């Protein structure tokens, strides 16, 4: 007899699942436990090159309170039902709202969306997991707070809790999001509620001011992991500067990336450029201005010659460096001189500021994101190839020119082998860069989808063999990426899992961690 559920959790019978669903409904009410195909359809949409059936949930639970979540984990422990927690579910290209494994129950916390506190003096916020960046952005405007967010590309539709817990990044001086996280409340698998660091002191008013507390710093183990369910999240906000000056520097040759990085590193380390600037390849920005079909006919990757033509046709660099200056007019003027002196030496750089470009969409979206604005135009990326396939390959790279060129060449060679384009950028930290490649493919084309899977697999294997590890990955490749790291790391992760979640009910498979 066919099951009444779209899928069942691994090792759980329908009768057991029936009992669990009944108990979930007792806690949340009928309407907040979703099991029908129609209700669950949005949870199964993925961009990865794997069948949606691999990630079909059995149910979704719409919880709004800590007490409900405590009861849910109690039911999960009783019936050994695994849950996959999401906040806004917009981790596009990393798995979206779908669970890691077929049959897991999605615990959807989007409706748990209260802004609990914003302190405009100390510049911090405490929010529930479903709060979006747009909700906060509007809240600041409504209250006339001179505070800036740092957001990833999905900005308006994503939120700080989920993005930071997956160790996502933004483009402002606060762009390394976990570095600016401060204090969490976590429901543990046994139902206990942990408040990290200063949150452990009943009368403390420094939960969102001092990260470390006393004793081991625990917040890190609740990121990219499955050791608890974060129900409150504190983070720091940037005071709006009096002057903001975004800029774009174009270079016209791929090998120029060596010069760019060598100039940029000391400027980032000294704080002259305070934000996570980006070195974007022309193809990363191409979807904003050009159609791929105007430059490529037939299958295969775009040629270097066509990329040069495209860049010339649309006044783009082969490399496009965007960064910004923040501060008083005097500070910005001094730092702008340092930046232009440094990049101007070789005569290769072309400088562009807001005054030069008008409403250019490339400059416009970068300028918006570097001030934590709401802008989704980066997703013109998806129009470059079309067909809705996307996987982010995200190896970490030293902030060193020679390394940058080496990683780019490796990526291009592998992508070309599978007929895919190098749609890459480097997000520049201080000592490290996130080399971000959006591996775009047409998901309606079965052959290209198969090639995309193999290509991603080869990228992971080849990069890790050279010592380049991924900082984050999608839900279809979590085990493979985990396998590239030392088995002792995996063993420690497992020991923690066994201690904190002995029934393995919380997001089994996240970052390759299971009992």
């Amino acid at each position: 007899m066919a099951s009444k559920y779209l899928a069942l959790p691994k090792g759980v019978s329908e009768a057991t699942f029936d009992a669990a669903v009944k108990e979930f409904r007792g806690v949340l009410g009928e309407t907040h436990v979703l099991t029908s195909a129609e209700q669950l359809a949005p949870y199964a949409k993925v961009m990865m090159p794997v069948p949606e059936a691999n990630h079909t949930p059995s149910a979704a639970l719409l919880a709004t309170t800590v007490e409900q979540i405590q009861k849910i984990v109690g039911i999960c422990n009783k019936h050994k039902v695994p849950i996959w927690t999401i906040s806004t579910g917009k981790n596009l290209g990393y798995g979206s709202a779908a669970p890691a494994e077929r049959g897991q129950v999605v615990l959807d916390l989007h409706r748990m969306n209260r802004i609990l506190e914003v302190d405009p003096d100390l510049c911090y916020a405490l929010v529930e997991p479903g709060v979006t960046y747009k909700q906060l952005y509007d809240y600041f405007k409504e209250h006339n707070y001179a505070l800036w967010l740092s957001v990833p590309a999905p900005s308006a539709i994503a939120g700080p809790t989920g993005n930071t817990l997956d160790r996502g990044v933004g483009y402002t001086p606060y762009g390394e999001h976990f570095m600016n996280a401060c204090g969490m409340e976590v429901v543990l698998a046994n139902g206990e509620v942990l408040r990290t660091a200063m949150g452990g002191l009943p009368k403390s008013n420094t939960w969102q001011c001092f990260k470390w507390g006393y004793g081991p710093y625990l917040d890190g183990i609740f990121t990219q992991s499955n050791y608890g369910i974060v129900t409150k999240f504190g983070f720091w906000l940037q005071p709006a500067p009096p002057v903001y000056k975004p800029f774009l520097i174009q270079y016209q040759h791929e090998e120029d990336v060596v010069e760019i990085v060598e100039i940029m590193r000391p400027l980032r380390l000294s704080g002259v450029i305070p934000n996570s600037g980006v070195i974007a390849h022309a193809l990363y920005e191409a979807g904003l201005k050009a159609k791929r079909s105007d430059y490529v006919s037939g299958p295969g990757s775009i040629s270097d010659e066509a990329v040069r033509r495209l860049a010339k046709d649309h006044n783009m660099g082969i490399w496009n460096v965007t960064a910004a200056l923040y501060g008083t007019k005097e500070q910005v003027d001094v730092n702008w001189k340092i930046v232009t002196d440094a990049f101007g030496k070789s005569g290769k750089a072309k400088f562009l500021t807001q005054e030069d470009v008008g409403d250019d969409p490339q400059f416009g979206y970068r300028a918006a994101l570097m001030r934590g604005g709401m802008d989704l135009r980066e997703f013109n990326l998806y129009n470059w190839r079309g067909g809705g396939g996307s996987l982010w390959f995200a190896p970490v790279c030293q902030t060193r020119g020679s390394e940058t060129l080496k990683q780019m060449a490796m990526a291009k060679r592998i992508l070309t082998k599978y007929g895919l384009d190098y749609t890459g950028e480097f997000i520049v930290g201080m000592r490290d860069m996130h080399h971000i490649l959006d591996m775009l493919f047409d998901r309606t084309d079965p052959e290209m989808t198969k090639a995309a899977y193999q290509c991603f697999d080869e990228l992971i294997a080849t990069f890790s063999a050279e010592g380049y590890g991924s900082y984050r990955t999608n839900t279809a490749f979590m085990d493979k990426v985990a396998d590239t790291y030392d088995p002792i790391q995996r063993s420690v992760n497992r020991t923690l899992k066994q201690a904190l979640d002995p029934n393995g009910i919380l997001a089994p498979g996240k970052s390759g961690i299971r009992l």
Partner: protein
Amino acid sequence: MCGMTTSRHSARFILAAVVAIGIAARVAGAAPEEATQPGFAWKDGAEVYAKVCAFCHDTAVGPTLRGRGLDPTYIQLIVRHGNRAMPAFRASEIDDQSLEKLAEYVSKAEANK
């Protein structure tokens, strides 16, 4: 997705929250429940459009929607299922009632100027 903050709740949603507390309290026995007052609630279809859809559909990331007289049922289907690169939106983000209002709004709205 996003919308009004605590200070702007409509009476309707406060009432809904009170009912929700009542239901939870009944099934949970004497266990105290945290307030379930939501952080936001959609005002109307135009607000959903402005705070979600417009970021792609008014910026050339996705196709223009307004002024095309699109069938409201089709709009609702695409919102819930997504379409190629367009993500799907869940009822937890855009509730069924707001989705109906959104579809109605997009279907009847004038074209972008």
